[in-house]
């Protein structure tokens, strides 16, 4: 069931996920199209997330945007500093400026980084964790992970466990997607693009997510004719043979990465599965550590498992 509508307001709206941002251009979504999209969202009863470009939006757009309750996704480099202050999610491309940025409590911060940036900036986390409540790290080149990277990733997450434990010990319920999300979940919590979330792109057409728009994929409907997602069932968990057997519930289960790496939206790559399981297993260790401080999420157990890729179980 559809719950969210993402509206990138321009071709170069900030990327908050695995895909690369579109080329800078002046292509804003047409204001009449925006009004139609907002009306559509109201009638379909879906939550709207506006994704902003760095350049300040023309003044006539602001009152239109404000006609609907929404979330704002904004780049840390956005020219409109008032907007950045008001944003629900602030996105950093890489690690520059993070230290100097004045984080606000209750807000989510997304850092997009490639694996080498992640491994090189492990120390930045230490200074960040006390300053914010929710940090989301998006690794932009998961598909390029090799065996040695898996080992480095596991070591990195293990090194963060005592730091996060310390925050919890201080009473700071920090949310860090790679380590804490799995602890709080009791079922899959994925991106769900194509199932619960859909994107209306600046060209006025629907796409599975912004990445599908930017890579030239076919649209899945438009404002005039409505949504038309062929094989929609393949975006659901019950039609994903590997994922439906998996309990790395925090996994983003990115259908765009799936299609890029395996040619099927319902099948994750080996790399995506292993990365998610390294996070899952590190979350298990973190949960055990936090419990040494006192009772914590007593209902939630993360079982010990002996595989990193559920594909191996299916093959057996």
């Amino acid at each position, binding site marked *: 069931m559809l719950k969210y509508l993402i509206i990138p307001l321009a071709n170069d709206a900030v990327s908050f996920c695995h895909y690369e941002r579109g080329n800078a251009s002046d292509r804003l979504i047409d204001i009449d199209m925006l009004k139609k999209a907002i009306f559509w969202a109201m009638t379909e009863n879906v939550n709207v997330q506006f994704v902003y470009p760095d350049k300040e939006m023309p003044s006539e757009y602001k009152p239109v945007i404000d006609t609907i309750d929404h979330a704002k996704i904004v780049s840390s480099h956005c020219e409109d500093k008032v907007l950045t202050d008001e944003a629900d999610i602030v996105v950093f491309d890489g690690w520059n400026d993070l230290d100097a940025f004045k984080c606000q409590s209750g807000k989510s911060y997304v850092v997009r980084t490639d694996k080498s940036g992640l491994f090189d900036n492990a120390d930045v986390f230490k200074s960040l964790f006390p300053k914010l409540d929710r940090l989301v790290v998006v690794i932009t080149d998961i598909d390029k992970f090799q065996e040695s990277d898996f080992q480095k990733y596991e070591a990195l997450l293990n090194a963060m466990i005592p730091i996060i434990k310390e925050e919890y010990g201080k009473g700071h319920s920090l949310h860090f997607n790679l380590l804490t999300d799995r602890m709080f979940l009791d079922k899959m919590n994925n991106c769900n693009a194509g199932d619960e979330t859909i994107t209306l792109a600046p060209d006025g057409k629907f796409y599975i997510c912004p990445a599908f728009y930017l890579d030239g994929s076919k649209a899945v409907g438009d404002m005039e004719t409505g949504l038309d997602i062929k094989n929609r069932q393949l975006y659901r968990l019950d039609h994903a043979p590997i994922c439906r057997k998996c309990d790395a519930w925090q996994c983003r289960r990115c259908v765009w990465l799936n299609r890029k790496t395996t040619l099927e939206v319902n099948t994750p790559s080996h790399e995506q599965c292993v990365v998610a399981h390294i996070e899952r297993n590190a979350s298990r260790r973190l949960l055990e550590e936090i419990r040494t401080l006192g009772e914590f999420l007593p209902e939630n157990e993360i079982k010990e498992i002996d595989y990193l890729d559920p*594909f191996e179980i299916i093959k057996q």
Partner: protein
Amino acid sequence: MSFDIAKQSIDYILSNPELFNEPSVEFDFIGGEPLMEVKLIDRICDYLKSQMYKRNHKWFNSYRFCFATNGLLYSSKDVQEFINKNHTHLSIEITIDGTKAKHDLNRIYKDGRGSYEDVVKNIPLWLEQFPDCGTKVTISHADLPYVCESVMHLFSLGIKVVNINVVFEDVWVDGDDKIFETQLLNLADKIIDNNLYENCVCSFFVENIGKPMDQILDNGNWCGSGKMLSIDAAGNFYPCTRFAQYSLREKKCVIIGNCVDGIDSNKLRPFLTLDRTTQSPQKCIDCEVASGCAWCQGENYDAADTDTIYQRSTAICKMHKARVRANNYYWNKLFRKLELEGRREEYNATHKKQTEKPC
């Protein structure tokens, strides 16, 4: 295909036993007409054998070379030398469509002459060398009126096993299922009334098809794509030859690697995790005569609304149901006859129960 491409492919396959861990292997040479290149094939087979021996590979002495040929070159000196050299490891299937009229409808030379006479003269030699080999027949819309006479003709030539199926493409029109059922009922009568069931097999008649299927216990994929590496002349790898560009109408080919870089195992994952219910529409899951209803993953992909192998084509639905009805008739009639003759137990003891053979 150049020998060098074949050699690189063989080197890759034999160097990666963990990726190809089956105890035995079939090397299937597909044309056009493979026997036109029998000298190249002979060189490739020699290289394979020598490499399997040198590497002490588990497939040495557990391999087969397989061919589906139009049979025209079967008696030629080069082909016969190849057969004599490799006989114990060979499976050769000559495709002959049926009667002369039926065969010459499609199988013609460049100048329009039919090839039936030239093929049929090689059948005795083929049956002498490979008495247990069968032939493969594929039925499309235009072939329907000839099904019964074609199969009977093949039996009359001495061919004992006729592997036959309808095409998976959406070529069927209203009423085809009735024509098909009538043909199969006639065929059933002829096989049983002439006691041909004693020695001959037509794969349309299989005892255990036409039953509902359990969603959990009977959830395997029918098609073997992804488990049978296919290599084109340029050295590109496919999950099955049906995914090469020359086999597809609408979609882009699905390349899963090549002989230089090897297999991209991520691209194999969807094939190896594919099951029946995930790709089937609800009507197939609920179908009361589901068992034995086949599909071709390549055709599913080609006919799908999106670029996916997870959308089962149901173009043969009515044809399968027609087959099931005729199949039910065949077994009821045969078993009643055997019972009346007091030969049912004897039949059960001497005839292996046929099972539907997945792709």
